[in-house]
């Protein structure tokens, strides 16, 4: 293959790369977290206002989404670690039918103990402008959205820990 062809390919790819915006994993969102009330696992119901005064991490997930499934046990660890310090984890499942999510949660080797709410008609997902699966929002003690994290990649849980710690100090 001639040098000209190779340089042509490289130039084409570089040009393409220049137009590609790198996916940013976290942005600093602002404003009060929209209120909502949803039915939750175990027949209970969940209302965001009941967590005022605590740092809340809301994780939007679905059982068909692999990164969401990979993230779940790590979220459980974070919940157990920081719960005594005024932190709560809230999972919001976005599937229109709850049976797949319930089945998957039931089969986990390490059960999930934090509340899981079911957003069956995607009302809350729309409210929070969920753009990626999974999406994670961290709300501070005053009820304001402080962090929006899109997607999940190995190592993101460390970023969460740092952010939660700094919000707990407030």
């Amino acid at each position: 293959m001639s040098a000209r062809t190779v340089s042509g390919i490289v130039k084409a790819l570089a040009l393409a790369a220049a137009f590609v915006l790198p996916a940013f994993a976290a942005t600093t969102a602002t404003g009060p977290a929209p209120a909502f009330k949803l039915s939750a696992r175990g027949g209970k119901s969940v209302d965001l206002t009941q967590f005022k005064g605590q740092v809340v991490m809301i994780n939007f997930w679905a059982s068909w989404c692999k990164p969401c499934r990979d993230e779940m046990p790590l979220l459980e660890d974070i919940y157990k670690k920081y719960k005594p310090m005024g932190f709560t984890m809230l999972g919001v499942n976005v599937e229109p039918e709850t049976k797949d999510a319930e089945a998957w949660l039931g089969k986990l080797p390490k059960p999930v103990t934090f509340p899981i709410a079911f957003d069956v008609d995607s009302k809350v997902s729309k409210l929070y402008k969920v753009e990626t699966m999974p999406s994670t929002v961290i709300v501070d003690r005053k009820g304001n959205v402080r962090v929006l994290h899109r997607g999940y990649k190995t190592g993101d849980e460390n970023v969460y820990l740092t952010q939660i710690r700094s919000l707990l100090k407030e």
Partner: protein
Amino acid sequence: MRIRGLFVLGALAFVATGCSSIEPWVKPYDRENLADPIMVFTRAPISQDFLDHVFESREGSRGATGGGGGGCGCN
């Protein structure tokens, strides 16, 4: 040929930036069916490649046999 290729790239990038005025109409939380493994265009590349090769060896046509996209849209 190379210039044409770069032009195509440039045109596509231009289209990409202009798309921000229309909102994506299928939300990521609505992609359950699209993420189903049966919805992938090629379930087994090893089998599809073999069949593509069988057809190409016997036909005068070639090209435009690939397919991708759809899927879970995660991350």
